[in-house]
């Protein structure tokens, strides 16, 4: 709430500054001249008026792109530590698909993938942080749902990872259990404020099973409780389960049960009401996919610039008099910058969760549409 109010107050304080559009500017000046004429008794009325104007001025405040350019970096909301998606490495740098996606957006905007600052958020804090303007992008293994797109005022830009919710148990302690349908009566560890929590309730209810939820706010707390044996079952997105298993005391003892009980399309989200920023983030994602489809990699992107293929030339901004990048609000070589910074989608996937990572997750439905998967980008033209 403080965030929401402070955004507005900043808008009001900056009343007559040039970054405001004419509408806000006029009102700001009008207030200033008239205020001088008013006598002391009218101060209260003046404040009431100023309050209204402050609100209106903020409505006309600068766009996210301008804000980001002015401060020189992108504020990116990530998880508090989920291997493969966003977790700090031994040097304290954030690694993972979600962290790299923010670097890709920074590369598109600044031509430099390092101009990102990360804000670790719990599941409960994440939406408020985005709504209040504390972060510019929420890239935090967050499931895209209709409620979040409408009532929460967010815009999901796409699905960077198709996931589904699964269950993990300690096979050593529960040798007979090999299906989620045998879990009636179990204590289930789950993170609060997630779609996982809701799917869990639905799944046990529809299968007429009982369970005892053990709910924590932070991922680390859930991990510790499961590892200590406070609950029998751990449930979250399957990719998350593989990541969490690596952090347990004895990873080999734990198995992920075969059932997938939900669709969890994970993707980055931005605030509503700023179409330009929404498009930049969305097309960064599509550019990553397009680069993979065209075989443009981190290693060959410079050579590809001189390619004869008109599509590659167009995507990399080498076409004469191209306006694709500038129309988006970034430079024309934005795709080159993105790929140079993080590689294409395939490289990003393999490095963080696939064969190049300890998680060893197969591409599966996250493969490109040309290879039987669901990842598909509209044409960049």
């Amino acid at each position: 709430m403080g965030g929401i109010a402070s955004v507005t107050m900043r808008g009001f304080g900056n009343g007559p500054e040039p970054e405001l559009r004419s509408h806000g500017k006029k009102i700001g000046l009008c207030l200033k001249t008239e205020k001088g004429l008013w006598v002391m008794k009218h101060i209260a009325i003046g404040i009431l008026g100023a309050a209204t104007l402050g609100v209106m001025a903020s409505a006309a405040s600068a766009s996210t792109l301008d804000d980001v350019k002015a401060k020189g970096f992108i504020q990116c909301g990530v998880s508090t530590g989920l291997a493969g998606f966003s977790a700090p490495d031994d040097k304290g740098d954030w690694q993972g698909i979600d962290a790299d996606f923010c670097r890709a957006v920074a590369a598109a905007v600044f031509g430099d993938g390092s101009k990102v600052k990360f804000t670790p958020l719990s599941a409960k804090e994440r939406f408020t942080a985005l709504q209040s303007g504390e972060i510019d992008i929420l890239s935090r293994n967050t499931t895209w749902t209709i409620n979040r797109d409408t009532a929460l005022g967010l815009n999901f830009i796409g699905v960077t990872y198709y996931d589904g919710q699964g269950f993990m148990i300690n096979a050593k302690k529960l040798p007979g259990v090999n299906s989620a349908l045998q879990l009636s009566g179990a204590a289930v560890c789950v993170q609060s404020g997630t779609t996982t929590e809701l799917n869990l309730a639905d799944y046990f209810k529809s299968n007429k099973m009982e369970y005892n939820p053990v709910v924590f706010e932070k991922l680390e707390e859930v991990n510790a409780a499961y590892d200590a044996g406070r609950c029998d079952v751990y449930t979250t997105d399957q990719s998350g389960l593989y990541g969490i298993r690596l952090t347990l005391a004895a990873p080999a003892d734990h198995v992920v049960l075969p059932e997938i009980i939900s669709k969890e399309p994970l993707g980055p989200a931005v605030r509503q009401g700023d179409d330009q920023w929404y498009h930049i983030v969305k097309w960064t994602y599509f550019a990553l996919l397009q680069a993979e489809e065209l075989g443009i990699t981190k290693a060959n992107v410079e050579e590809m610039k001189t390619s004869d293929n008109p599509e590659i030339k167009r995507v990399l901004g080498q076409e004469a008099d191209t306006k694709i990048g500038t129309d988006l609000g970034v430079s024309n070589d934005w795709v080159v910058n993105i790929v140079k910074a993080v590689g294409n989608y395939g490289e990003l996937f393999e490095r963080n969760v696939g064969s190049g990572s300890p998680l060893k997750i197969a591409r599966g439905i996250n493969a490109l549409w040309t290879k039987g998967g669901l990842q598909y980008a509209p044409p960049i033209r």
Partner: protein
Amino acid sequence: MASQEILREEPSRGSFVNDPKVRSLFFQALVVVLLVAGVWWIAQNVIANLTRLHIASGFGFLKGRAGFDISESAIAYSSDSTYGRAILVGLINTVIVAVVGIITATIIGFIIGIGRLSHNWLIRKICTVYVEVFRNIPPLLVIFFWYSGVLAVLPPPRDSIHLPFGSFLNQRGFYFPRALWGDGSWLIFVALLVGIAMAWFVARKAHQRQMATGQQFPVFWTSTALIVGLPLLAYALSGFPLSFDYPKQSTFNLTGGFQVSPEFLSLYLALSCYTAAFIAEIVRAGIRGVSKGQTEAAAAVGLRSGSILRLVVVPQAMRIIIPPLTSQYLNLTKNSSLAIAIGYPDLTATAGTVLNQTGQAVEGVLIMMAVYLVLSLVTSAVMNLVNARMALVER
């Protein structure tokens, strides 16, 4: 005298603007207007920004289906219940832990506080160490100590520790038999109520008789016999209608019986131990506050040390103790929101989940603030009543 005359004349000489009365009224009015304007401005800001960001607002969401489960609930609740009911479940959980915590903290606090004034060196030192240890550790660490340090290292359900009366203790909590009341068990409760009423009556009569004649009556033993004996008699007369549901081992956990979760236990123990340290100091200060002459005078008329404490010192000490005690009760209630760290579903936890599932942060936080405010005001009101009864009656 001369200066007074000048003061009296000044208002008439000065203009309207310099009149202190008008000035004072003006500035008071100004503060009120500024305050109202400030609040109005913040409210307008929030509303305008919520609209601008296309975030839903209003309290209509309370009627929506919650969709999530809560591990502990004193009232009927399922994922089909409403968000409003989920918040109510959290509120009741907060009240439960606060009430039992307050009772336990008061008992421990009085024992430790009196212990610190003991003539026995060992008891005095043990009580000092208790106070210094718990008073100087943040309550969150005390909660973690009980949760991760004591209860989490208990054996898993398969190797539960067997306790007397069919109770079990393991890392999933404390299990004990649940009483199943059969037909005719209402008679036992009636007998209990009658027993309590009669004990109260006996105590009153005995007091009157002692005041009139100086003769004492064994009130304690009579009362105990009435309160315990009458229900037992009723139990036998109604044909022993009581049976127990014992906890049993199942695939994953113990089922049946009554379960107290480790989350509740650790929060309850931590809050009780922590607040008791402060209450002990308040009690000690209260007793110290009673003049030594009172004790000596009581001893001089021949009262024994127990009677001196009960009849002379404590009633006077209570007047000093109760006001700061209220603050400790409020602290305990508010500290219960630390439950979120160990996953006990108190108000902060359930309202927080509702807030996150609906995205309506402003409303969610407003509800939480209002509820804690009401809880604190109710506690204060009750303690003020007690304080008023304890206050010195001037004759």
